[in-house]
């Protein structure tokens, strides 16, 4: 059955200027104008947004859960990327 419900778009909303856009759900729409209007009506009825992005769901590439171990592994043994790795003499300021 094809009801012409359009394609799936993922919706990202920025809640305040300066903040990142955050995923909040999805909408169906036939084209990009309709997608952004639907996103406004569905996800910002209480002024939750200052900006909206809509992205065709099929354009999003994501990591796969089965591989997360090896995929994120390279970062696991690099604790020297965190400031807490370093010893600093007591009493030193602004460091």
């Amino acid at each position: 059955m094809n009801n012409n419900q359009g394609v799936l778009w993922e919706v990202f909303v920025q809640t305040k200027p300066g903040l990142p856009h955050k995923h909040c759900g999805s909408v169906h729409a036939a084209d990009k104008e309709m997608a952004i209007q639907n996103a406004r009506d569905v996800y910002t009825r209480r002024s939750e947004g200052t900006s909206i992005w809509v992205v065709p769901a099929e354009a999003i590439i994501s990591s796969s859960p089965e591989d997360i171990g090896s995929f994120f592994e390279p970062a696991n043994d690099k604790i020297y990327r965190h400031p807490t790795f370093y010893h600093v003499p007591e009493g030193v300021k602004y460091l």
Partner: protein
Amino acid sequence: METIKLQKIFDAKIDRGDMIEPKDWMPDDYRKTLIRQISQHAHSEIVGMLPEGNWITRAPSLRRKMVLLAKVQDEGGHGLYLYSAAETMGISRDEMIEQLHSGKAKYSSIFNYPTLTWADMGAIGWLVDGAAIMNQVMLQKTSYGPYSRAMVRICKEESFHQRQGYEIMSVLAAGTPDQKAMAQDALNRFWWPSLMMFGPPDASSPNTAQSMRWKIKRETNDELRQKFVDRTVPQAEFIGLTVPDKDLKWNEAKQSYDWGTPDWEEFNNVIKGNGPCNKERLSARIKAHENGAWVREAAAAYAAKQQQKVAA
């Protein structure tokens, strides 16, 4: 990876209280249970627009009309959040709508009762949304990520729904004797069906035990129902209305109310499609969907044309 190992990873996540996300491996029955539950929840939001839509044009003031419009619009939105959460499990929007229209998928039986007077808008907001919120607050901690996130949004938005309903009831209850009688009549008609919204008693609820194990549900039907009674009875007393249950009595020892038994035969009958408005609700949905076909076709045709222009 073989299924036994995947099952172990899944079980460990559930035990730790981790969320399951769309691309994670999950047992077929977990997926099936959630598709059923989320899609029926979505259908309930959509069908739930109908009994209230009945009163938009007859709201007693502009303020009430504005509020009712906003509430019904929210319910449309909530249906959409939930449809999109269900879609992450691999069912299409078309399939879900098809299941609603064919009667294969259910929606909350409460919406098969008619809204006869303005006071029913008060009773629905106060009791029906109140019961729904109690269920949804629990579901904010459900184990499936997209469902949980939809619930957080919905709970935030619905808190006004219950308050506006209680406001309608309290104004009527403090009004003329006729207005108070109208409020009492609405409470009389909606009290028991609202208690049935929590589903069958735990002893005869086939899905509860497994749903609790999977942490889809965090409290049982009977626990939520009792909580609802305990919170709502004092609200009725506060505005001078009487809960229509002759067995209702405060139990000092358990710090909670004892109360009667819902008519489960009526409940099963309404679920089977024999409630006062089952046919009317479903045919209104189907008609709305069919009448909107030309809009969807036009939008698709326009989008195709725009794409051709870009390609040319």
